[in-house]
C-alpha cells in the first residue's frame, strides 16, 4: 500500500518537473534548449523507430548505443574482476596492505581524465585505449572496498574456521569472500556509475567512429541540438536503468546481509 503510494508520488513529481521544463523551454524559445517533447520525438525517430526484427532499434541506435554499452560492459567486467581479485589478495595480507595503502590512495586520487594522454601515448587511439582507460578508472573503488571488506572479517568467524580446520581455499571461498561481499558491492556500484562516465569521456576523444559520446560530439559539431540533447537524456536513462538492474542483483546476492541487518535494528 505504501509502496504504490510512493510510486504514484514519484511519477507525479517526475511528470510535474517535465511539464515545468516543457513550459520553460517553450517560453524561452531558445534554439539551445529544445523542449523535452522535441527531444523525445527526436530520440524516437533517431533510435527507436526501427523494424520489429531489431527490437525497434534503428541502424543509428545499433551504431551509437550498442558499441557504447559493449565498451562499458567489457571495461566494467575487466576492471571489476581485477579489482576483486587484487582486493582479496591485498586484504588477506595485512602487511602488504599496509605497505601499499599509500600508493593505492595516491593512484585512486588521480582524476582519470588527467591520465588520458598517458593512455594515448601507450595505446594510441581506439578501442584498446578506451577499454584500458575504463578499466583503470574503475578498478580503484572495487579494489579498495574489496580489500577493506576482506580485512574486516569477524574475528570469531576466523576462529571458527580455525577450530573446524577449514583449508585455506575453503576459508577464502566460504568465509572471507562472503564477508567481503557487502563492501565489494558498494565498490562495484560506484564503479558502475563511474564506468558510464569514463565510457562517454573516452568516446569524446578523437579516433572514435561510433558510440553515444561520438554521437554527442557530431551532433554538436553539426549544430543539431535536439540530437545532442537526445544523447544526454539517453545517458541519464541508461545510468538509471543500469543502477536499477545492479540493485536487483545486489538484493538477491546480499539477501542474507540485508535481512540480518534488519533483525539487528
Amino acid at each position, binding site marked *: 500500500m505504501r509502496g504504490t503510494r510512493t510510486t504514484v508520488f514519484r511519477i507525479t513529481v517526475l511528470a510535474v518537473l517535465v511539464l515545468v521544463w516543457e513550459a520553460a523551454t517553450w517560453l524561452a524559445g531558445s534554439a539551445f534548449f529544445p523542449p523535452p517533447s522535441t527531444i523525445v520525438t527526436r530520440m524516437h525517430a533517431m533510435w527507436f523507430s526501427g523494424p520489429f526484427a531489431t527490437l525497434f532499434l534503428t541502424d543509428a541506435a545499433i551504431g551509437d548505443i550498442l558499441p557504447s554499452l559493449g565498451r562499458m560492459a567489457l571495461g566494467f567486467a575487466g576492471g571489476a574482476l581485477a579489482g576483486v581479485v587484487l582486493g582479496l589478495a591485498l586484504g588477506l595480507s595485512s602487511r602488504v596492505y599496509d605497505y601499499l595503502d599509500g600508493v593505492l590512495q595516491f593512484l585512486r586520487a588521480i582524476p582519470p581524465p588527467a591520465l588520458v594522454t598517458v593512455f594515448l601515448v601507450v595505446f594510441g587511439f581506439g578501442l584498446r585505449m578506451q577499454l584500458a582507460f575504463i578499466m583503470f578508472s574503475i578498478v580503484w573503488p572495487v579494489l579498495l572496498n574489496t580489500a577493506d571488506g576482506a580485512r574486516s572479517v569477524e574475528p570469531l568467524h576466523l576462529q571458527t574456521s580455525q*577450530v573446524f*580446520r*577449514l583449508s585455506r581455499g575453503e576459508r577464502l571461498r566460504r568465509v572471507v569472500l562472503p564477508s567481503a561481499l557487502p563492501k565489494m558491492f558498494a565498490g562495484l556500484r560506484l564503479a558502475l556509475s563511474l564506468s558510464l562516465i569514463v565510457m562517454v569521456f573516452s568516446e569524446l576523444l578523437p579516433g572514435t567512429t561510433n558510440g553515444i559520446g561520438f554521437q554527442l560530439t557530431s551532433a554538436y559539431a553539426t549544430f543539431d541540438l535536439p540530437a545532442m540533447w537526445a544523447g544526454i537524456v539517453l545517458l541519464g536513462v541508461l545510468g538509471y536503468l543500469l543502477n536499477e538492474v545492479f540493485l536487483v542483483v545486489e538484493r538477491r546476492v546480499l539477501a*542474507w546481509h540485508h535481512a*540480518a541487518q534488519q533483525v539487528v535494528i
Partner: protein
Amino acid sequence: MLEIDNLSHVYGGGTPNAHHAIEGLNLSVAAGELLCIVGPSGCGKSTLLRSIAGLIRPTGGQVRIEGQVVRQTPDNLAVVFQDYSRSLFPWMSVEDNVALPLRRRNLDKRQRQEAAKEALESVGLAGAARKYPFQLSGGMQQRVAIARALAYRPTLMLMDEPFGSVDAQTREDLEDLVLQVRGHHQMTIVLITHDIDESVYVGDRVVVLSKAPAHVVGDLKVHLPGPRDQISTREHPDFVHLRAEVGRLVRGHATV
C-alpha cells in the same frame, strides 16, 4: 584425555602493562567426563579455553590431548562459542553451517547433509535446516552451533560460556540439551561458565579458578542423583550444599 601442565599465559609480556591471565595451572580431565570450569569474571577462563583449543599459544607450560601436545587446533576438538550470532555464518543456511566443517571429514555431499540433518534433529531443530541463522531466536542459534559441534563428532567439546547470552528459560533448556546429547555421544565436555548453579547442575566435576592470574583453587566431584531435573535437582540438599561451597571458593578469591 586432557592434561594441562603448569600452564601460564601472559599478554603483552615484557611491557609495563603485561597481563598475567593464567599462572601455574594444572588440570587433568578423564575421557567421558563433563567438567565445568567456573571462576570470577575476567579471571582468564577464555584464555584457558583458547589455549586448549590451540587458538593461542600459551607462554608457559603445555596442554596435551590424548597424549599429544596441542600446537594448533587438534582435529578431534570442537568449540561452541558464547557469541553464537558471530560464530555462525550468516550467509549460509542452518544446514550448510552445520555441514561446513564436515568437508574435512572425507564425506561426500549426501553424507554431509545427512550428518547435518541428524545433528539438527538431536538438538530439536529438524525443521530449521533450510532457514538462515537470522531467522532463528538466540537460543535456537546456539542449538545450531551445538549441532555443528556434534556433527563434527569430536572427542573433546569445549563450550565457552555457551549460555551466557540467552534468557533464563532458554538457558535451562540448553543445559538439559547438553546433558541429553552427552548421553548419546561418547565425548568429553569442558564447559566454561561464570554461573555457579549451572556448573553444579551440569557438571560431573566442578573446577574453580582464582581471579587472574588464574590457577585452580577448588576441584569438586558432583554426586547428584540422576537424571538431573531443573526443579528437583536444584532443591536437593547436596546441590544446595555444593553450590554454596563453589560459591564460597569463587567469592573468596574474587574479593581478596
